């Protein structure tokens, strides 16, 4: 006869407010097999856990049911508690009284009755639970970092410094990400390139880091500790071993008038080249879509002129596969293209700039050498209007969320403009200025008090061209909403930060979640901010949500710490929730009829063929066998097996049906 202990948690008021916990405990006490039942305010706290440990010893419990929050939250916690008291952890089950009961109901009586039902069901299940042992799996101590912005660089450096090998995959030809495009950075106004480029060089020369630039992740297989990743190295059309980065090719390339992506279309580039002078690696790439040689076979100037014979038009994409134990995703963000804001000068005016375009304009390495001159005619603008929340906090036509970085970078932009154009007027249109960061509010006040930036509390209704003159329609909401139509020479948008447009494809490849907007999801917004719901895959930087550099770097180091912590173990353990083909005495051996429907359906390719032979080696029958290290315990095979030979450890038919039958009593 089983001896079950039941522990009902109030979860503060979370459960206790809607569910009468003492009554649930009391009714549990009357269930067959239950020898002990209590309720407690916080069962997950130390005294709460002690209650469980003591009861296991005192009442010689053979099973434990904790009525509390979702098993995703604390199943691990309570199973550890049981193990500490000598009870096999898989004999502990959670009755979800929070997410599936108190949070979704308001009527106390009904909720309490439902809680009683749930507990009864789980008690019935636990009586059939069998002790299980965790599966031990080996571990590859090598990390993959996807994305070579400041997040990816920082994570790679920290992991590499911890003594572990890192493969850093960046899809553009160079490391750097958006930070490489920035002019100066808030709140200290230090030059972005000066603090970033040394890190890029360090990453490239670190003995533990292998760079894969101009490469993308094609496919991911395996699981924590044992991922197998397929990487596509896109054809650079250059042999990096031969190339010295001398620059002859891009100086001589006759196609010179292509808009530079790095300069956000404000500068020009050739069909061969590096994206910016400090690029790492300093090896060019041929833009095949625009190269004359690839278009019509003519030209080939770069090849003829290259001293080392590094140009190779026949190069093809290369596919490589690598084994890694953990992955850091650091694929960053984009800014909202201005054509998505048609109210602002039809979304196509050359003198209406995105925030990133202004960074290039203000950058000493930018197309104007850091002078503020407007794109349409090269004139120095005398009035610049900065429009915040361009696409952010607009649930109707834009994004509902706050992009978090624009208040600060707009203050920076206005300040930089005032530093560079002394008599110029800088007007910022904002709703409220959000400056939660060290030294941030001081920075914003400095823009107003020392640098004379004008802040107007307004959203722009429309920006239009009045015969060449840009006019921004605003209203002073601190003055009753009086209308102000401001003539501007240049408009700079506080463009919303948006997820990488193709991030969903990547997330699906990796099996990590994303929210409705497309930001990658952390496992818990407070307590597990760098983990994903897939073990062994971590997040760093703006791919998880808009972030400034300090937050990005902090998160990247956290992801590195998580990776190193994972690698510190000798081997990994994982829950033994796996499928199993039954075995019985000869001459049947197994009820499996060898149809292999399961093999066709298994998404993890975990089903193998097993030949059962007699002593002389004669084949008796072929049955299915589950590869323990590949099986993820999804149960697809169990539901499809026609001869009912397949079952799932930890979720056996017997356990599940016992739980269901207890409900319909």
């Amino acid at each position: 006869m089983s001896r079950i202990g039941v522990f009902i948690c109030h979860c503060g008021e979370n459960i206790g407010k809607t569910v009468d916990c003492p009554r649930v405990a009391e009714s549990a006490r009357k269930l067959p097999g239950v020898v002990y039942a209590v309720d407690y305010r916080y069962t997950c706290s130390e005294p709460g856990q002690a209650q469980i440990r003591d009861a296991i010893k005192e009442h010689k419990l053979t099973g434990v049911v904790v009525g509390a929050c979702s098993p995703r939250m604390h199943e691990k916690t309570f199973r550890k508690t049981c193990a500490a008291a000598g009870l096999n952890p898989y004999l502990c089950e959670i009755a979800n009284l929070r997410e599936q009961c108190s949070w979704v109901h308001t009527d106390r009586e009904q909720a309490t009755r439902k809680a009683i039902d749930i507990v009864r069901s789980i008690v019935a299940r636990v009586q059939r639970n069998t002790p299980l042992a965790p599966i031990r799996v080996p571990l590859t101590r090598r990390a993959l970092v996807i994305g070579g912005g400041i997040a990816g660089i920082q994570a790679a450096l920290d992991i590499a410094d911890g003594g572990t090998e890192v493969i850093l995959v960046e899809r553009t030809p160079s490391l750097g990400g958006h930070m490489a495009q920035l002019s100066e950075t808030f709140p200290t106004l230090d030059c972005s390139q000066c603090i970033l480029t040394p890190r890029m060089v360090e990453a490239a020369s670190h003995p533990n880091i292998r760079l894969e630039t101009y490469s993308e992740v094609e496919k991911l297989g395996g699981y924590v500790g044992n991922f197998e990743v397929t990487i596509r190295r896109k054809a650079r059309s250059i042999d990096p071993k031969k190339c010295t980065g001398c620059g002859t090719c891009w100086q001589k390339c006759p196609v010179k008038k292509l808009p530079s992506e790095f300069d956000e279309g404000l500068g020009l580039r050739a069909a061969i080249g590096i994206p910016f002078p400090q690029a790492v690696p300093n090896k060019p790439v041929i833009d095949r879509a625009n190269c004359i040689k690839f278009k019509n076979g003519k030209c080939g100037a770069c090849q003829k002129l290259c001293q080392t014979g590094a140009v190779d038009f026949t190069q093809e994409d290369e596919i490589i596969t690598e084994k890694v134990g953990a992955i850091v995703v650091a694929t960053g963000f984009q800014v909202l293209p201005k054509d998505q804001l048609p109210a602002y000068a039809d979304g196509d005016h050359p003198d209406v700039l995105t925030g990133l375009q202004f960074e290039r304009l203000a950058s000493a390495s930018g197309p104007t050498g850091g002078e503020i001159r407007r794109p349409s005619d090269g004139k120095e603008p005398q009035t610049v209007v900065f429009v915040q929340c361009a696409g952010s906090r607009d649930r109707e036509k834009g994004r509902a969320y706050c992009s978090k970085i624009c208040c600060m970078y707009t203050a920076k932009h206005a300040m930089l403009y005032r530093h560079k154009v002394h008599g110029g007027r800088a007007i910022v249109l904002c709703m409220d200025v959000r400056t939660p960061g060290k030294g941030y509010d001081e920075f914003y006040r400095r823009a107003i008090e020392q640098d004379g930036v004008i802040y107007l509390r307004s959203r722009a209704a429309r920006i239009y061209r009045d015969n060449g003159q840009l006019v921004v329609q605003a209203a002073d909401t601190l003055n009753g909403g009086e209308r102000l139509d401001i003539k501007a020479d240049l408009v700079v948008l506080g463009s919303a930060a948006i997820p990488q447009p193709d991030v969903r494809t990547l997330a699906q490849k990796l099996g990590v979640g994303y929210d409705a907007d497309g930001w990658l999801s952390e496992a818990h917004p407070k307590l597990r901010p760098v983990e994903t719901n897939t073990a062994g895959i971590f997040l760093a930087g703006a791919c998880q949500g808009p972030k400034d550099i300090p937050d990005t770097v902090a998160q990247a180091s956290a992801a590195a710490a998580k990776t190193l912590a994972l690698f510190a173990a000798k081997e990994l353990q994982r829950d033994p929730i796996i499928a199993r083909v039954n075995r019985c005495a000869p001459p049947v051996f197994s009820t499996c009829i060898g149809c292999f429907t399961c093999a066709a359906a298994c998404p993890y390719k975990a089903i193998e063929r097993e030949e059962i032979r007699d002593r002389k080696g004669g084949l008796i029958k072929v049955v299915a066998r589950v590869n323990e290290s590949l099986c993820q315990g999804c149960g697809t095979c169990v539901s499809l097996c026609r001869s009912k030979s397949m079952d799932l450890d930890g979720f056996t038919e017997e356990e599940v049906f016992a739980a269901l039958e207890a409900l319909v009593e």
Partner: protein
Amino acid sequence: MTTVSQTLANLVHQRTGTRPLDCYQCGRCAAGCPQNVPGEMDISPTRIMRLLQGETAFPEKAVEYARQALTAETPWLCAGCQACTTRCPQGVDIAGAMDVLRQEGLKRRMTATTKRVRDIQALHRTFLNSALRHGRIHELFLVIGYKLRTGHLFQDAALGPAMMAKGKLHLLPGKSADTSRVKTAVERLKTP
């Protein structure tokens, strides 16, 4: 059933399906409103929204805030162009709210009383009466009716003959249409 004790904000919610409380006072409606310019609206659409919020938030001042919103010239000077509703990032139907304010103002006999507001009200009355009576608007009769109501006998006096010369204004009424069903329906909707 709409009673006087119901807040304007609630009425706006009922009629438009959007809530003044959602307004975050960004000023976008004020910034793009063609009538929110000197000499026209006395208070901005953004401020109208704020008054409707105050009416809900501070019950002790609700009557006063409602009065301010209803007696402003703004609802009557609104052109109904929908620029505000189209652009509001919070999806508030500001133009719809202006309709509610006009209708409620008349019902509660609490509107601005300036000359121009009275003119505007007179035109709307003349127009609607004419539409309900004849089913169709006859422009000459509309103009005459309006002028008799307001006494603006000579405004636009030159336009009339010029329009007639171009065949744009007819002396004889055109066809009218039966509106008995409409009138019954309006009465039925009034009494729930």
